[in-house]
């Protein structure tokens, strides 16, 4: 249907977006690459010459590297698992007929509007604080010793905070998908005597696969770079130092731009490995 003229027009229309994004990607990336081969210490006078792959070797071989990759994957995986599973359950629940559905939906959607800094501060201080936090009060009420959330269960705490922020997003997408499910099909299955669990497994879940893919893709993009939540709560201690945070420590806390840049390149590589992996699945699912 596309004529030659509309094709070239289309190309013109895409040009601004492509050029802008290409610039946004390439310029900082090239500068980061350039710095990563330099000994660059702003607090010691800046550029101290080329050092080849030294920064890469140092970053890669430091004892903090692999734990940080692991922490990144645990957080991303944990949050994804929670938001997808609970998102599906919530979506099914919200799809049922009830009174005040609109208000419930407003309540569920709300955490998505809260800025990460605020949600981290509120959770850290007002809920997870082992002395004055609400959880501590609750635990004491039941005669239990309050949990020191951010130190003893640091990863869990962080995953809870982040999952709380992203659950609305997952729920909404999944809810919309469920609402589009052909209810006659479900009813027919119910009349044939199919138990609820297999109705879910054979009809609902396959129908949701595309929505789940979108949830996973979009969330992964955002989760790989979470920063504010860690900065506000643990500052990377107790095993919560993700790759992003490690790079932050190198660049800003240690003011070692060369080393941090090498770390940044590692982070880009990790992100792209995950991206390619994800894109494969998404690409397939998007055609469907």
């Amino acid at each position, binding site marked *: *249907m596309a004529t030659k003229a*509309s094709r070239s*027009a*289309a190309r013109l*229309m*895409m040009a*601004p*977006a*492509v050029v*802008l994004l290409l610039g946004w990607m390439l*310029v*900082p990336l090239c*500068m980061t690459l350039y*710095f990563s081969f330099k000994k660059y210490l702003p607090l010691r006078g800046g550029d101290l010459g080329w050092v080849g792959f030294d920064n890469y070797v140092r970053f890669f071989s430091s004892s903090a590297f692999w734990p940080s990759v692991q922490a990144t994957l645990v957080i991303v995986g944990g949050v994804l698992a929670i938001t997808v599973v609970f998102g599906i359950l919530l979506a099914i*629940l919200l799809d*049922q007929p009830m009174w005040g*559905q609109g208000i*419930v939906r*407003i*309540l*569920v*959607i*709300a*955490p*998505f509007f809260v*800025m*990460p*800094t*605020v949600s981290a*501060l*509120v*959770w850290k*201080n007002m809920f997870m604080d082992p002395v004055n936090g609400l959880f501590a*009060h609750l635990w004491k*009420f039941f005669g239990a010793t309050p949990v020191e959330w951010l130190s003893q269960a640091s990863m869990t705490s962080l995953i809870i905070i982040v999952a*709380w922020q992203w*659950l*609305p*997003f997952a729920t*909404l*997408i999944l809810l*919309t998908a469920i609402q589009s499910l052909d209810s006659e099909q479900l009813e027919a299955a119910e009349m044939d005597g199919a138990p609820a669990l297999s109705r879910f497994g054979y009809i609902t879940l396959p129908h949701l696969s*595309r*929505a789940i893919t*979108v*949830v996973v*893709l979009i969330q992964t993009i955002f989760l*790989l*770079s979470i*920063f504010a939540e860690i900065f506000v709560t643990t500052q990377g201690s107790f095993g919560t130092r993700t790759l992003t*945070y490690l*790079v932050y420590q190198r*660049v*800003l806390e240690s003011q070692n731009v060369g080393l941090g*840049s090498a770390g*940044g390149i590692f*982070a880009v590589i990790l992100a792209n490995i995950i*991206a390619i992996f994800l*894109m494969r699945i998404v*690409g397939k699912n998007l055609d469907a």
Partner: protein
Amino acid sequence: MARNVTNQRKLINTVAAWAVGLLIFFPILWTILTSFKTEATAIADPPVFLFFDWTLDNYRVVQERSDYMRFLWNSVIIAGGSTFLGILVAVPAAWSMAFVPSARTKDILLWMLSTKMLPAVGVLYPIYLIFIKMGLLDSRVGLTIVLMLINLPIIIWMLYTYFREIPGEILEAARMDGASLKEEILYVLTPMAIPGIASTVLLNIILAWNEAFWTLNLTAANAAPLTAFIASYSSPEGLFYAKLSAASTMAIAPILILGWFSQKQLVRGLTFGAVK
């Protein structure tokens, strides 16, 4: 028949859904409540829920310490401006990808999304240097551009999935009537795309409003938005839960209200073409 549920089942659904809804909403509710307490009540054990002496004192203190309106205004300008610019760039791109797809369209789209995976901390230094060179530090313009760029992939992706839902036949019909490309966009596509664009705008405003890395690192006094406003309350001396709550409430209230009023569009927008 099966959909003809009994009132009893509806009641159970209602109770369950409300319970879950309130649980999820609770942290926000608690923050709002705490903002009206005194510092001593805020940490009382057992916690006080509703029956306390409500006070506006925390809001007064917070406002005295930092001029809320200025931060708010910056947030509005930056979130609004970046969304506006983003839409200007994204609409043509998404349109052409949706209606004049080529073999590489999907690759381009996925590539665009992948640029969002560049870790911000890794490129802070280069961007900072560029900003210094261009005199953009602590300027709303600079921040607007950066936020536009980081959210552009998401905008394009959303608009693309929207535009794809618009049936191509309508366009062909318009074309046969002799409509030019410009007319096609203005009179045929735009009206159909408005709801999609509205949802995209909303989502983008939320994302830009809540962005906390660039907004904090590239601003000082002139362009600092609400994320910077909050950064001065993270741990003042002594008891601070009530003041923190007041500041938090002030920071999230505008976007929360906006989100609630427009939740229908937003819900549609969030589907990302997950549903056909």
